């Protein structure tokens, strides 16, 4: 991008943060996995399948966190013309999609022993499935144009449209779920879950979060370098 969108300062900050984020993520993963797999007791009802929660819940949280930060970045790019916002959105999208896919996979794996089937049209799982399509749509749209700037602009608009629709989709899926399947299959204990389970969950959530920051910084650096390559190639052309 042109010198008026000088990312040099951002790169300095990012490179400073990167090792810390990576280190924190490694530590949290180690601690989380140890506590989650070894130290915490199996659930009296679900047995050991409850350990899947330590992956499923952080993944669900990260899929929603990533999409909302992308929507904010899209607003920043469209409204305040912040040049780096759309680089962030494009960098974060694959991560968000990965988290969503992971959430769906572990969701069905977690529920399968109880439900007896691999997929249940539970309200939350369905909303995450729709979110997954929103991610795929964004990624496909951003790369569908020859001019990357054009792709980013269209992607930003789609993110804002998506952000407006996410609550509507969530509400309509909940509404639809109550119409067709009165009792939801199982209710996670929420704040009442045992402390021994809460700690690994928080650690794994922190691990996912710091992992996200570390990798998104890498992807932003790659995005900026790719943009620079495109500018140079255009410069060569004439």
């Amino acid at each position, binding site marked *: 991008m042109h010198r008026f969108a000088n990312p040099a300062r951002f790169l300095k900050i990012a490179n400073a943060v990167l090792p810390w984020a990576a280190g924190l993520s490694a530590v949290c993963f180690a601690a989380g996995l140890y506590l989650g797999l070894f130290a915490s007791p199996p659930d009296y009802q679900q047995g050991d399948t409850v350990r899947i929660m330590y992956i499923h819940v952080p993944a669900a949280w990260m899929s929603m966190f990533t999409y909302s930060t992308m929507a904010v970045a899209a607003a920043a790019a469209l409204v305040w013309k912040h040049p780096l916002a759309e680089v962030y959105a494009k960098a974060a999208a694959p991560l968000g999609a990965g988290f969503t896919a992971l959430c769906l996979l572990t969701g069905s794996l977690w529920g399968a022993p109880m439900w007896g089937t691999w997929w249940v049209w539970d309200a939350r799982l369905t909303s995450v499935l729709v979110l997954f399509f929103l991610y795929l*749509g964004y990624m496909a749209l951003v790369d*569908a144009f020859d001019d990357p700037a054009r792709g980013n*602009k269209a992607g930003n*608009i789609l993110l804002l*449209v998506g952000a407006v629709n996410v609550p509507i*989709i969530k509400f309509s899926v909940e509404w639809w779920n109550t*119409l067709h399947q009165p009792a939801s299959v199982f209710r996670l204990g929420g704040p009442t879950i045992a402390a021994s389970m809460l700690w690994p969950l928080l650690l794994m959530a922190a691990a996912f979060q710091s992992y996200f920051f570390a990798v998104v910084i890498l992807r932003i650096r790659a995005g900026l370098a790719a943009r620079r390559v495109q500018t140079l190639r255009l410069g060569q052309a004439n």
Partner: protein
Amino acid sequence: MLRLILRDLRLVLRQGSDATAALMFFVLCVVLFPFGVGPEPNILTRIAPGVLLIAALLAALLSMERLFQGDFEDGSLELLLLSPLPAEGVAIAKVAAHWLVTGVPLLIVAPLLALLLRMPADQLGLLVGTLALATPLLSLIGAVGAALTLGARRSGVLLPLLVLPLYIPVLIFAAAGLDAGLSGLSPRPHLLLLGGMLCGALVLAPLAIAAALRAAHE
């Protein structure tokens, strides 16, 4: 704006391809279902609302890709964006033209097809009412996708992927309304929600379409 709508209508009448394509798709799609699912009346009645709505949704999507494409390729869209008519006005005119061309014929044909799917005759009024609320929504949301994918490489595949998640609430409320009608409950709450979404889309969709059209011409 009316001038643009009339022009589009005349354009479609002379070329005629898009309108009939969407209608033919709708009819064929619905007619095929009994062959797949079997002719038992109770099954057909049970799935009639969903089949009709999904067929309408896909028919709207089918004709959506060409919505701005023609004008974009021959330069008319650029001149429209430079005319005194605001971009939002162009968006609404295009959506209105699309709805009149594909939405309204669906409303006319739907009751006939509903009878094919053994839907009880007293539900046909509700069906037309629900479709009257749903089809403009399909045009509005679809037009956002069409504007976003202007100039994109393989927009044929891209457009459905973008728009289908946004269609889900429309499908849910419309189908729920029809189901309520079938089982004797009052469809009022579902249709009210559908109407609310229509009002929201009438205001917000043209903004998104206008932004996308401007982005396509930067």
